[in-house]
């Protein structure tokens, strides 16, 4: 690149010299035109003007090559260095940013995976919890129903037993009252005689 730049600079210098020469020559041509010269001599510089101008040009060129070119070259090299460093820094920044991006993407993927795992576990736990809660609620409901049925049966049985007992009490009280109030001594005597007949042994 540097070589290309030098080549380009050399060409530029040559072009510049040619241009300077033409610049110096132009007034001469103008003057020549003014003299209204004809033929090839019309385009050729006058030697008396051309040589000093050439000398001046060469001196200027020498000064430029000696002093201007190194300065110009230094500026270019500094500029090149700056650009190169900037490019290197940007490259490093790009690499760093790519690294960070890759790292970030890895972490992002990892975070997404972790989040997916957490969500999955949470769903499983929630499902298990829901199933357990449902089962427990079902079990408790069944227990409550069974207890209620038992209590109902128990109360029903107790009520029936109580009713039976009441009926029995009333019936027996009525019987006892009939015996007490309506039985004569003769009736009691007959009962005693019947008991004597039915009574078992006492001397077992």
């Amino acid at each position, binding site marked *: 690149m540097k070589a290309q730049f030098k080549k380009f600079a050399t060409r530029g210098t040559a072009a510049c010299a040619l241009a300077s020469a033409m610049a110096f020559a132009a007034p001469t041509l103008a003057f020549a035109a003014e003299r209204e010269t004809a033929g090839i001599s019309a385009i050729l510089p006058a030697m008396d003007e051309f040589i000093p101008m050439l000398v001046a040009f060469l001196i200027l060129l020498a000064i430029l090559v000696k002093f201007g070119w190194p300065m110009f070259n230094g500026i270019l090299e500094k500029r090149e260095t700056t650009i190169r460093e900037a490019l290197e820094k940007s490259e490093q920044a790009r690499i760093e940013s790519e690294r960070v991006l890759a790292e970030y993407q890895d972490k992002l993927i990892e975070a997404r995976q972790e989040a997916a795992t957490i969500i999955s576990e949470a769903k499983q736990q929630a499902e298990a919890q829901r199933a357990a809660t449902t089962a427990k609620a079902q079990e408790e409901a069944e227990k409550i129903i069974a207890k209620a049925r038992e209590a109902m049966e128990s109360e029903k049985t107790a009520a029936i037993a109580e009713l039976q007992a009441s009926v029995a009490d009333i019936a*027996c009280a009525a019987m*006892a009252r009939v015996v007490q109030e309506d039985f004569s001594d003769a009736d009691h005597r007959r*009962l*005693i005689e019947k008991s004597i007949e039915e*009574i078992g042994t*006492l001397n077992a």
Partner: protein
Amino acid sequence: MPRNRLLIKKEIDAYAEVLLEMGESNDSVYSISAQLEEMKKVVNMHPGLREVLANDSIDENTRVTVMHEVFKEFDVELIKFVIFMAERRDIALLPRVAERYDQMVQDKFDVAILDVATVIPLDDELREKIKNKFAAQFGKEIVLREHVDAWLLGGMNVRANGRRVDCCTATRIERIRAELSSVSTGGER
């Protein structure tokens, strides 16, 4: 203070023998038996009476008066005997003394004492029927101790030698009541 079982048994025997001698001397052997049976029941049913009998701070005359009030028709000698037992803090032995007395009477006179409870007093015909019924069972002369108890409602209860046969109407009605109470409805369970 706890006493030896053998000593208590000897004490009961002594009380029963005294009573038997008393009954023989007064010709009231079976009467004493019946009265002892009644006293036993009454004393058992009334803890207050037991307390009065056993209370030393109450003089003997008062206790005799109380006993006479409670057991108006009873033998005076028997009442004094029971108070004597109470003074010796042996009133709790009265049931066992009565039992032992009956045993001694039965052994000595070769009889079987039957407690017969009825709603109405027995007449001679019924007594004879009962005696005949149980004489065959025991092979002995039967002596009846009669009790009138309206709670029986009808029929009779007989007890002898610690065994009891219940043929009273109250018990029959109670059995019917129990059966009626326990009958299953046969409905949906």
